[in-house]
């Protein structure tokens, strides 16, 4: 850099208004997002109970965490819920989008219907499905009333399958969003591709499978990241639908964190558990961020 001529105003005061307008962003980014995260990670190595204290105990909290059956259940549930809801919402979301992309009439109406659950609170969704899955009056009750006395579909009161009951509700609420993202992806594909495929006599399912879906890879990746980061946070739905029950059968990590921080007054455990959540998200986000941002930097 060459030397500056005289009269160049101080860089600090150039664009001063823009800097003032960005103060909330800077504070949020530095204090809450970076600072808060670092603080929690730091205190996860302490034995804080009711109040945060800096008496370090190394990895004690983590050892206790991974020895806790409740945490193991929560992790197992998250894995099942996460894996299945990723697969199902991607598949169902894509199929719905493909159906809506067939130049149908009333497309807007169908889309409005498929998407409306997404406008609802997880609490509302959880309570609706709690009612629908009620063993006495819900699906099970209705089928039994029809005469099939031995019919059993009672996920919310069966510890073995309770997480699938939550999955049903989660999919009902979330697939509309995936459908919207997929539809946007489909509409982003050049119409000439379809024309070319038709001229070449390629059947529709093959066009989707071998041409359209590979072209939609960025949309799939974005959607995947969005669903995945939502899955890790799943909390309200469980609280409303089962409160973690029966017993601890439907516990999830976010609920574990909340309970230890605010109910059990064992902050250290809560911090350790939330740090593990952060780690889980990082495993999803970092490769994606590297893929999205890092790769382009070299081009």
């Amino acid at each position, binding site marked *: 850099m060459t030397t500056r001529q005289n009269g160049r105003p101080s860089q600090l005061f150039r664009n001063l208004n823009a800097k003032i307008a960005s103060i909330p962003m800077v504070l949020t980014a530095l204090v809450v997002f970076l600072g808060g995260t670092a603080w929690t990670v730091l205190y996860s190595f302490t034995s804080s109970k009711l109040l945060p204290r800096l008496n370090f105990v190394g990895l004690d909290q983590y050892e206790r965490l991974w020895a806790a059956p409740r945490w193991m259940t929560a992790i197992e549930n998250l894995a099942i819920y996460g894996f299945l809801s990723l697969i199902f919402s991607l598949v169902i979301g894509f199929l719905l989008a493909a159906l809506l992309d067939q130049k149908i009439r009333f497309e807007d109406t169908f889309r409005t219907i498929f998407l409306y659950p997404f406008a609802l609170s997880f609490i509302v969704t959880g309570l*609706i499905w709690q009612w629908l899955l009620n063993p006495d009056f819900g699906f099970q009750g209705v089928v039994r009333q029809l005469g099939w006395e031995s019919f059993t579909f009672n996920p919310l009161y069966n510890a073995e399958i309770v997480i699938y009951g939550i999955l049903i509700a989660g999919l009902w609420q979330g697939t509309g969003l995936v459908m919207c993202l997929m539809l946007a992806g489909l509409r982003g594909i050049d119409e000439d591709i379809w024309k070319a495929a038709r001229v070449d006599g390629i059947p529709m399912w093959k066009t989707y499978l071998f041409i359209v879906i590979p072209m939609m890879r960025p949309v799939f990746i974005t959607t995947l990241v969005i669903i995945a980061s939502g899955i890790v946070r799943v909390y309200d739905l469980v609280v409303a639908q089962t409160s973690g029950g029966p017993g601890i059968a439907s516990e999830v990590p976010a609920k574990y964190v909340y309970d230890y921080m605010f109910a059990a007054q064992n902050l250290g455990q809560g911090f350790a558990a939330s740090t593990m959540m952060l780690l889980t998200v990082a495993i999803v986000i970092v490769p994606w961020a590297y893929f999205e941002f890092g790769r382009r930097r070299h081009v």
Partner: protein
Amino acid sequence: MSDHAALNVAAAGFDAIAEEVSGPRGAKPRRVLSRRNIFLYGTLILIAVYYLLPLYVMFVTSLKGMPEIRLGNIFAPPVEITFEPWVKAWATACTGLNCDGLSRGFWNSVRITVPSVIVSIIIASVNGYALANWRFKGADIFFIILIVGAFIPYQVMIYPIVIILREMGLYGSLWGLVIVHSIFGMPILTLLFRNYFASVPEELFKAARVDGAGFWAIYFKIMLPMALPIFVVAIILQVTGIWNDFLFGVIYTKPDTYPMTVQLNNIVNSVQGVKEYNVNMAATILTGLVPLIVYFASGRLFVRGIAAGAVKG
């Protein structure tokens, strides 16, 4: 430079959804009653029924009396319509010792949502404008932290925020929650506004500068009048998002100031007394009503909003 480009790519994905209204692209429709059409519409209608069923069940349950619920079928329409459950849910349902129904939660939610929406949108729109048009050194770094921060689980940040709010004397108050909503709404709203303002032709901004307009004059006189649609999108996004929030409400408010979702959960999942399913369902509908009205009234703008808001998860 490259960071900017990458963010733009990420953002373009969301913006593409906005363009998604351009029209269908699939194969061409043929005769009305072809086998293909019967299959297509049949499938769509079946799925639509599945999606609508819960809403229907909720509605009919809320209009039945308890005896009818115990004996009947949840899918059956009410034999005898009663609005008693709605009245009870609104005015007299109990949470703990309070028996003044959901109305208190409703008004709390209004008191939380209105200032949160206003504050968060003001902050984010000005910030997005600064990022798009008045770029200064280092701004991009904070913006990237902000966007990446949107993916950090809230659980990692909730306790430090408790401490900050306690230090400010705002823990447990409505204004504390307003701050929390403004913080967590910031990434997506800033992205939304930044992308919008970046799409405004740069020459317009240059012309205004030659005309002697400064930071605020350009914002209020040039940008704001052009950005009204995006403000509507932001309002839709925030009203539904904040109204539906449960986690922040339960952490940062006290029973007196609990938002509607928290109160609803307390009413329905309270262990005391006999379960009144009709009241529960009426309460659930009441809580879902505001976002549903916003959803059905806003149509495509909602799609645009959630496409951007999808980051929020």
